């Protein structure tokens, strides 16, 4: 059954090819069926592979499928091979499962769009790329998937490319990701130079068998470079700026790519390379610090945004920061756990917001919403579940995963990490409920002509919402503290380093039942606090936000403008580079290069204009020159050759 692992990838690729090549000629229904069918089959195979792994004893749960040798050059050897182990099979389940629901949702959401087949072709291609990323068994093939998801992200953000903001956002995402990818590529080169292999198994075996001391400089550099790639793809400080702009794409795309799957690639990569990261405490500190900083920073920006999708985007960045914090303190299982639950509830929230936008005929500004809960009840209920889940109220999914991260941060990291995480959790609860109250509660601020068209979304959009809502409720039980099924399942991947005691379940069990319970209570109180504050400000006393904004004008403005980070980047990086480029273009390209090329051409044109006059076309004239030549030859042979 594990042999089928390659088929997980085959179906989306085939679906993408069919829709991309022939989609124009197919009927809309068939395009949708092909795309969803491809992902559905892929999901089914993922389940088969997953159950195949479960049937094996935990130590043997790794399977490599070598397809063919891809690049062979000297000692360098890259194979096209896939790996099914607990981590990759879990990831492929998330990708195909959530992806399947979002595909179905897209049928309804994108129904009116003229680029229907193009959209599904890209979406399938994205799923293929993401699966390539998570299933590959070496760094280079993973990098191929890594770049391919970047490409699909670019294509889908700029899906409505006739809108300038969309194509700009696509370019921004691509360029910012390039910075991170550069680090990742360098990291892979360093890995090859250090380990003489890029195979996961070989590299991690070599690393875990004591060849490298903890804190080894080479490993630190490698892990930092890899983290650079992860920060780019997973939108961490300082490379997060592309993600909010990526909301220019269709909403299901935001759900699938920019919330549930692609942005988690960085987490996956770090979790995959956990052996290397464990060898470098310095990098771990960096990862945890940046994760914590991002979690707080993005959450604070999220407080003041008025675009429903942008709030969710900053929330995504913030939640990704949580995952990095978890990885940074060595709690990889908690990171992956949160990745999974986040995929559920963030996809739900994005799809829900898509449903809201759909109902309001494209309106995204929350100031023009309000009072929608009776108009679109299914969306409201599912959205509420998602909000509660992300806010961290038991027993919803987000509570368990976030709680585990906070616990681990407290136990393995230090109090500062925990405090930052707790503040971020408070802010998260606050802005998510602010979003919920502004959108669904209170008085309606919807435009009149829009209000007449208010309608609940079709079934193929609401059913995925309900399924995701169900997952958001029960997803957390996979990782119940103390009896975590997920912990147990993932332990072959993360628990492999015997010399290191710093992994998941054991650490938390050392501290008995007292601390976890205390933590749970505390984090629940924090979440409720945030909700209470949001309730006070946005339902009870709606004049309060305005007053606060006047009172704290400067912080309010800074937050509203997202700390001016985009402006700072523009001033520090973008504009100088633009200016230099313009100078290079005008001086070097136009004047020197073009000038020299054109100059050569002009020189020959000029001289040719003179010399072509010799070509009179008269035979007698040519005969004249022949005689001149003969005389010279005669002179040469007679006197010079004596």
């Amino acid at each position, binding site marked *: 059954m594990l042999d089928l692992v390659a088929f997980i990838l085959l179906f989306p690729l085939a679906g993408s090819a069919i829709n991309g090549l022939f989609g124009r000629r197919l009927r809309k229904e068939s395009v949708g069926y092909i795309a969803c069918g491809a992902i559905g089959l892929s999901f089914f195979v993922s389940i088969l592979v997953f159950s195949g792994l479960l049937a094996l004893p935990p130590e043997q749960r790794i399977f490599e499928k070598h397809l063919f040798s891809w690049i062979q050059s000297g000692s360098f050897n890259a194979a096209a091979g896939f790996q099914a182990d607990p981590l990759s099979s879990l990831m492929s389940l998330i990708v195909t499962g959530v992806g399947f629901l979002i595909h179905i949702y897209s049928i309804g959401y994108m129904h009116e769009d003229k680029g229907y087949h193009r959209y599904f072709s890209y979406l399938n291609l994205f799923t293929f790329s993401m699966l390539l990323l998570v299933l590959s068994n070496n760094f280079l093939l993973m990098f191929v998937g890594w770049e391919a998801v970047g490409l699909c992200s670019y294509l889908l953000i700029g899906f409505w490319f006739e809108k300038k903001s969309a194509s700009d956002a696509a370019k921004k995402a691509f360029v910012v990701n390039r910075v991170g990818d550069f680090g990742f590529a360098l990291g892979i080169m360093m890995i090859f130079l250090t380990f003489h292999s890029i195979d996961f198994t070989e590299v991690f075996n070599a690393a875990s068998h004591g060849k490298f001391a903890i804190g080894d400089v080479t490993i630190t550099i490698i892990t930092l470079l890899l983290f650079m790639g992860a920060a780019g793809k997973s939108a961490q400080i300082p490379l997060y700026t592309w993600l909010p702009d990526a909301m220019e794409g269709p909403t299901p795309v935001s759900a699938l790519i920019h919330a549930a799957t692609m942005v988690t690639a960085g987490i996956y990569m770090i979790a995959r390379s956990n052996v290397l990261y464990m060898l470098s405490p310095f990098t771990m500190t960096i990862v945890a610090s940046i994760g914590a900083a991002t979690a707080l920073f993005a959450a604070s920006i999220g407080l003041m945004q008025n675009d429903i999708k942008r709030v969710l985007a900053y929330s995504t960045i913030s939640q990704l920061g949580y995952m990095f914090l978890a990885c940074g303190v060595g709690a990889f299982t908690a990171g992956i756990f949160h990745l999974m639950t986040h995929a559920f509830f963030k996809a739900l929230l994005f799809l829900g917001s898509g449903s809201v936008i759909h109902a309001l005929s494209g309106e995204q500004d929350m100031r023009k919403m309000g009072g929608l809960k009776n108009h679109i009840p299914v969306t409201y209920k599912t959205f509420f579940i998602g909000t509660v889940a992300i806010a961290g109220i038991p027993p919803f999914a987000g509570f368990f995963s976030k709680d585990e991260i906070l616990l681990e941060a407290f136990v393995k990291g230090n109090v500062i990490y925990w405090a930052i995480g707790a503040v971020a959790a408070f802010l998260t609860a606050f802005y998510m409920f602010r979003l919920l109250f502004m959108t669904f509660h209170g008085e309606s601020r919807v435009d009149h002509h829009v209000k007449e068209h208010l309608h609940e979304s079709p079934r193929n959009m609401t059913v995925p919402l309900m399924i995701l809502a169900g997952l958001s409720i029960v997803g957390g039980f996979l990782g119940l503290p103390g009896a975590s099924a997920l912990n147990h399942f993932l332990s072959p991947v993360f628990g492999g380093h015997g010399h290191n005691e710093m992994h998941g379940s054991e650490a938390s069990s050392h501290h008995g039942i007292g601390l976890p319970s205390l933590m749970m209570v505390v984090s629940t109180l924090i979440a409720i606090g945030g909700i209470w504050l949001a309730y006070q400000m946005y339902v009870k006393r709606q004049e309060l936000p305005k007053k606060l904004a006047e009172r704290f004008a400067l912080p309010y403005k800074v937050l509203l403008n997202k700390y001016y980070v985009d402006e700072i980047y523009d001033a520090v990086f973008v504009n100088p580079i633009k200016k230099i480029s313009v100078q290079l273009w005008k001086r070097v390209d136009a004047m020197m290069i073009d000038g020299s090329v054109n100059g050569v051409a002009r020189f020959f044109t000029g001289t040719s204009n003179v010399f072509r006059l010799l070509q*009179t076309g*008269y035979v*007698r*004239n040519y005969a*004249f020159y022949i*005689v*001149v030549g*003969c*005389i010279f030859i*005669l*002179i040469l042979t*007679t*006197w010079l050759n*004596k």
Partner: protein
Amino acid sequence: MEPYLFYVMAATSVVASLYLIFEKNPVFCALYMVFSFINIAVLYVLLEAQFIAAVQVIVYTGAIMVLFLFVIMLLMVNVEQKQKDDLPFQRIPAMILGFVLLVVMGLTIKSKIFQGKEGEYTSAKVESIGHTQLIGKLLFTDYLLPFEMTSILLFVAVIGAIILAKRKV
């Protein structure tokens, strides 16, 4: 007597050649050309090449001149005066160039680099065998292959002339 004959013949052939290049009427040109060639034929006799002299007369007067005159009359070529001359400025330079060529060739001759090994066919020997007989013998022994090849050449020329001159290809 021989030197005088040479000078007379040389002078007449040069004069006839000059007339050839300056005469306007192509028919007269052809006649001057033949006159010049007959003078050269006499020089061949002086050089003890009687067969070549005979061939010269037969081929040039009998064949080539007739051909030229035939073509001239066939095409009814005008007197050159009336035709356009796009390169009038080339006349004087061409003559100077011809003179320079002559000087250079004269200097080449004067530098006496033309010295070959003497052959076996002295005048006496040629006399004893007979000039025509000797040429015939050589043609069919030592020069058989080139001789046969000239036959092919003439054949090809005949076909080529027909093809080119035909009205429709």
